[in-house]
């Protein structure tokens, strides 16, 4: 969808999506300076993402999908345009407020699992919860629940060196979902994994979207992900070129 004004997204079957989008990009522009050349990465980007869906942004390397993810997840600010996340205008928030927004509302899963080598799986998940001001017992319970959800209860006391790549990524997912975020962002979460592990990670992300009503936005060029996503946005040259939805996918009407 590349229209110039915000509007409800259109599925492949032409259905109009009702309900307020949990994540909305309006006329986004972003460029970077490379040497003396200014590279326009995103051009007049308009996009609406709904809760309860696994939305996949797919496209070739360098098309701007990771930049779009970093803008929508409040890691970066756009040159111009508006980003509304959970009803808040992110552009109006200062750096501290953005950190608070991310702490309370967003989770991240990255290609490189980025786990602390010294911490066990349980501690990795507990770590960000401490910054939410939760008590030790509460954060322990939440961390155990999150690890249970990704099927790693048996690996709770193991360090990253003792885990496989897929297990590490599942710990990273548990770390992201333990905060109960309404928005979950995943940047190439399966690219470094074998087929089985990748499949498992996709299933978990999908289940989180469906069972928790979480807005899951995933950026990937992994073709295995396409058939598991509720919605696939094809991106090229800094713009959305296609918007495809699973025929049976029904977004939640009451978006967060």
């Amino acid at each position, binding site marked *: 969808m590349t229209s110039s004004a915000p509007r409800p997204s259109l599925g492949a079957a032409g259905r109009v999506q009702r309900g307020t989008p949990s994540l909305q990009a309006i006329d986004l522009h972003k460029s970077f300076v490379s040497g003396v050349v200014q590279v326009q990465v995103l051009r007049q980007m308009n996009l609406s993402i709904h809760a309860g869906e696994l939305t996949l942004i797919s496209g070739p390397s360098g098309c701007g999908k990771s930049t779009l993810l970093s803008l929508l997840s409040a890691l970066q600010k756009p040159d111009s345009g508006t980003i509304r996340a959970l009803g808040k205008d992110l552009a109006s928030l200062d750096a*501290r407020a953005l*950190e608070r*927004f991310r*702490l309370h509302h*967003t*989770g991240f899963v990255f290609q490189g699992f980025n786990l*602390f080598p010294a911490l066990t799986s349980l501690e990795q998940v507990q*770590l960000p919860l401490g910054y939410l001001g939760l008590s030790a017992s509460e954060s322990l319970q939440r961390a155990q629940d999150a690890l249970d959800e990704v099927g790693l209860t048996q690996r709770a006391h193991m360090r990253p060196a003792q885990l496989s790549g897929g297990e590490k990524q599942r710990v990273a997912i548990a770390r992201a979902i333990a905060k109960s975020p309404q928005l979950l962002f995943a*940047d190439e979460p399966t690219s470094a994994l074998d087929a089985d592990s990748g499949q498992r990670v996709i299933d978990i992300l999908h289940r989180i979207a469906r069972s928790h009503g979480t807005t899951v936005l995933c950026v990937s060029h992994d073709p295995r992900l396409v058939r598991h996503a509720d919605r696939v946005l094809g991106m090229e040259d800094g713009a959305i070129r296609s918007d495809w939805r699973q025929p049976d996918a029904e977004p939640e009407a009451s978006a967060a």
Partner: protein
Amino acid sequence: MIALARKTLIHEWRRFVPAVFAVGFSCVLLSVQAALVLGIFGSAAVYVRASGADLWAGYPGTQSVNFGRAIGQDVNLRLAMDPAVTATEPYLWVDGDWRSNQGSGGGVSVYVSGIRTAADGMLFSRLLAPWQRAALRDPGAVIVDREDLSTLDTTVGGRAWINAHPVHVVAAVDGLRGLGGVNVITSIDSAREIAGSEGSAGPTYVVARTQTPAQAAQAQARLAAGAPGFGPFEVWTAKEFARRSQLYWLLDTGAGVAVLFMVGIVCLVGTVVTSQSLMGVVAGSAREYAVLNALGVSRRALGLLVVEQACWIGGLGLLLGGAASAALLVLANTYGVPVAMTPLTAAACALLVGAVTLLSGLFAMRGLMAADPALLLR
């Protein structure tokens, strides 16, 4: 809250060892340099520190103990007239040329200190045992530092000549080594003999004891106010005169400035090594910190995490460096190397190393946070 800094330090101790060693290295460099400076330049005032006098009277403007000139005999009387002064005694300083009767080499420049040999004598009272002081009553008897015996090419009981006057070594003591020349203690009568006609001009200094050390400053102020008919002379408290002598050697001589310059370079190298090691440690965890920031952990909280890590590294480095420094200083002391350490200097060294560690950590954090978290996650 998960103790990330401590757990990481324990689990990845190999990664932190270079940084801990760098801090320890910096600590050793700094404390040994400080101890050497204190030791070397402290020896410029060994005459004052080793003596029990509270006041020193000498020629006006004397920069250092070894630059004394003859003052009038009446200065002794003027000091004794002050109500706070309980005892006075003269100190005769003679520049001499030592020639051993054992070797065939040339002479050695020596500083001869002529002192009162009575049991209650103030000069070198902290260095000489009563029997050593008594032994000096023998004409030509001298006492030298044990480490200087080889320089003087003599032994205890050995004979030599100073300015062509026969002398014999009756004892050797520790802690008499000086700056610029070899110190030789003798009785004031022997010193006058050695000085020849110069010895009759008067003592180089007159030292005095006050009723209590606390009265020294007041007595000095009274004596400084002027004494018509006496002099010329100037009076310093022992602490002042020791400090004056040290500062002269430290700041007004080429050797002192060179040593200070070396200390500065050593500190700079230590700081850079520590800083680089710590920054390497922080940079090694950059991606993990960036993830925490992406998850909403504030930069301030991350900064505190790095500072905590720096404090652990700094603390361990200080323990290591402190132990190594203490061992080195004991070794240096055993071999007669002039070193001195005071609690205040040790605390200042620890504080400086701690501050360097902390600043390095903050600097490393600043560099890390200046980077775009979005780019760090690629």
